[in-house]
């Protein structure tokens, strides 16, 4: 595959297409443990937003409760943030996007916040296909309460204290595919290139994009016997495909050999390029996606990449057929029917 830029006016080196520097996307200094996978993901978010060129004021950062949910403070200081209650960020995000459809919603959650206390709201978020990038910083453990298992801990994995997890893990990607998410990917915080690419793809997507990112907890779940550690991830990660991303503002011709790579156009005109590796995999086939997940679970594989993509399904805003402008700021004359309307109603009640 070779890529050649057609329109060369590449922006000056250190700023993006909006003229913003990467520093414009930074947040406050992190207060998480040194080496935490979550910090790596925050950095990839900064990079992805910067490279994609999202206007920070259009972004709404939302989270629940937990270590992961603290991270929206550590990126995009120029965006509004909302640290909601435990497990219930999806509803807050839904309300915010309904109020203002122009917002770019980014939800950051953890495995406890999503797969345990928040699983009810998570599954209904998926069903509704709300336009949101929903990132699960998945470390299989409750960090903020000092190291209890979460519902995504693998069967048989061990806590530092020697306690063995006896219950099967919730597969968030499987759930997401099954219940209606339209962009489902799994990645590893130790694979920044892939993480950034999948994030940018998610920005170009219009619907619920779930990124399940294995993010080692250096304090409570990074030891031998853990299946969410850096070492385990590095040794076991197996890429489904080589993911590439071409934003809508870069008109790049991609040449590839038929059968080697697939180009999928996203909602905003960007493209995801999926280059075949070991397996022949089509992420637009839902049945195949579920099969892949079941297979990898049986084989104890740690597969990363874009698992499922549906660019056709209506998102919630389209489904509700609301006006194009943000509902929140519609002028009064558009949200208060005229006096004749009240007269009508009153007449019918007389």
């Amino acid at each position, binding site marked *: 595959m070779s890529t050649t830029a057609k329109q060369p006016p590449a922006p000056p080196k250190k700023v993006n297409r909006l003229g913003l520097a990467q520093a414009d996307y930074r947040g406050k200094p992190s207060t998480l443990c040194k080496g935490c996978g979550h910090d790596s993901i925050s950095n990839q978010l900064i990079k992805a937003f910067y490279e994609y060129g999202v206007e920070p004021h259009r972004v709404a950062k939302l989270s629940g409760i937990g270590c992961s949910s603290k991270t929206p403070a550590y990126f995009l200081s120029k965006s509004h943030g909302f640290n909601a209650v435990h497990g219930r960020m999806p509803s807050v995000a839904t309300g*915010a996007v309904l109020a203002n459809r122009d917002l770019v919603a980014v939800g950051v959650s953890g495995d406890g916040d999503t797969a345990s206390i928040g699983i009810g709201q998570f599954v209904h978020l998926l069903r509704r296909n709300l336009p949101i990038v929903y990132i699960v910083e998945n470390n299989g453990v409750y960090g903020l309460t000092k190291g209890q298992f979460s519902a995504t801990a693998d069967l048989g994995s061990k806590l530092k204290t020697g306690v063995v997890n006896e219950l099967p893990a919730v597969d968030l990607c499987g759930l997401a595919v099954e219940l209606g998410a339209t962009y489902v990917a799994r990645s590893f915080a130790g694979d920044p290139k892939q993480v950034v690419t999948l994030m940018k793809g998610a920005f170009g997507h219009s619907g619920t994009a779930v990124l399940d990112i294995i993010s080692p907890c250096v304090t409570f779940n990074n030891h031998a016997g853990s299946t969410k550690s850096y070492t385990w991830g590095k040794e076991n990660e197996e890429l489904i495909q080589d993911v590439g991303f071409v934003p809508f503002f870069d008109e790049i011709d991609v040449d590839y050999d038929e059968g080697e790579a697939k180009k999928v156009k996203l909602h905003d005109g960007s493209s995801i390029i999926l280059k075949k590796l070991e397996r022949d995999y089509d992420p637009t086939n839902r049945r195949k996606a579920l099969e892949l997940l079941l297979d990898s679970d049986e084989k104890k594989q740690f597969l990363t990449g874009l698992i499922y993509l549906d660019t056709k399904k209506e998102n919630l805003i389209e489904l509700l057929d609301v006006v194009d402008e943000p509902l929140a700021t519609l002028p009064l004359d558009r949200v208060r029917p005229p006096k004749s309307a009240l007269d009508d109603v009153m007449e019918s009640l007389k």
Partner: protein
Amino acid sequence: MSTQTLVGEKESGAKPTVVNDFSIQVATINGSGSQSSNSVLMRAIFQMGVPVSGKNLFPSNIQGLPTWFTIRASKDSYIARKRDVDMLVAMNPQTAREDVQSLKPGSAVVYEQSLGLDNVRDDVVFYPVPFAELAKDVIDEPRLRKLLANMIYVGVVGQLLSIEKEEIRAAITKQFKAKAKAVELNVKAINVGFDYAEKKLTKADPLEIERMNETAGKILIDGNAAGALGSMFNGVTVVTWYPITPSSSLVESLIDYMKVYRIDEKTGKATFAVVQAEDELAAIGMVLGAGWAGARSLTSTSGPGISLMSEFVGLGYFAEIPAVIWNIQRVGPSTGLPTRTAQGDVLSTYLLSHGDTKHILLFPSSVAECFEFGGTSFDLAERFQTPVFVMSDLDLGMNIWMSDAFEYPEKPIDRGKVLDAEALAKVDDWGRYKDVDGDGIPHRTLPGTNHPGAAYFTRGSGHNDYAEYTERPEDYEKTMMRLSRKFDTARNAVPGPVLDEVDGAKIGLIGYGTTHWAIVESRDQLRNESDLAASYLRIRALPFNDELEAFVSKYDRVYVIEQNRDAQMLQLIRLELAHRPELLAKLSSVLHFAGHPIDARSVTEELVAQEYPAE
């Protein structure tokens, strides 16, 4: 009112009549379609110019359990429940005997002949009617026959009470709108009932409907539909809900209205979004998300839903996010009596959520106030950046009330202290939670505001003036004291109490919500029957303002009348007046909490008993 006439008295020639001042109760089985019949009967009386009210006493069940619908006609425009029933229409074999037993002597009973009720007692007037047989004359189809049997009783009752047949026909046309076939069948059923009563029944009760002119220009509507209209005409844009009796019809009405009146003319698209949430936790979460992003957003629920919303409401209070929550109260605790009415959530809603929280509560008494508070609630929520509760109840929300037509809201809406990019550019050192104006209300920005300084971080954890995370004691105290100051500002911004003071009165009554209508009527009874003048203060919102203390100061004894066991409003009044211990001794309660709407007679009896303990 006297209902002394017995069957035998008719021959004596003395025929006292009771005109436009009685209650008709229809006892049926739910799911039998009696609702249309009851509406038609009520509307026909209304169209005769006679003030009416309707109360549906229904079970938490879809089909097969007893249900009672009471229509009150009142020449004096009393629209509270009347405790005693004057005419019973007994259609339900399960309850018929008990229903008849509970009547006062002299009452009238129209009943399905096969129930053989006339041996139950001999001091009431019986009108046996073979409804099932008569229905066969109207139609062959068995299911429809059952429905039409219900319409036949409207004809029978109409004839007995001298309701004009033309008005019943008009009510049927209104009820079934354009469905010509249904109109025709139902009119036929009415005629069958009318004819039967005319030919076979001898009028032996004193009840009569006589044409008046007291309903011209009035409307009939339930409080939930009224609240929906008020919200729609005041700019609601995001609506979320989880179905729960008795609140569901608020959102269902709202959806119906908005589909007609809130579709953008140019694009055909909606100027609103409605989401049926997966539970009340999500419903309130969505409302807060939408309120945070600047929308006028509401949800509607009842007791169990309120309990579930507790955590999120605390976030709304502490992070200062506008939200409107309609609490259509029903009987608790727990599942309680889901289809019965109460004012049992006053304390729990006022202080909803953990930590030091308190909320603005509005108490509509009428359907007109439901309409009005549909707008007031949003103005207050956005002005004070906090969840606001509209405390309706099942009686107000689901029953049909007569009212003056609602007035179109002419005044602009209050969107509160929101800084857009332009306004923000003029502000030095903006802080999301800074009290710049000294009223405790900070200035907010909305997500999406195109200004580099607009963003802030909303959180339910400790925060300072700049919305930064903090655990410093002085920051926490400062925030909490400002919130308290903000609440104090609300005292004189919420709808104040309505005062009706009587010269020379020694006692004062305090009420709120639907209790109002029983109090209005009870005050007349007290004056007419016991020569007892009572001043009245009707609370319309929490927090209180100074008028409460002034009112209690003026009277020797003050009764707080409410529909719960624990005298919840009285407890709040005691807290409010704690600095005046001499006032506390004046306060006592009249409580009514068995699930039926409060009635004037019960209030009067209790007040008389407390005022004249020796008697």
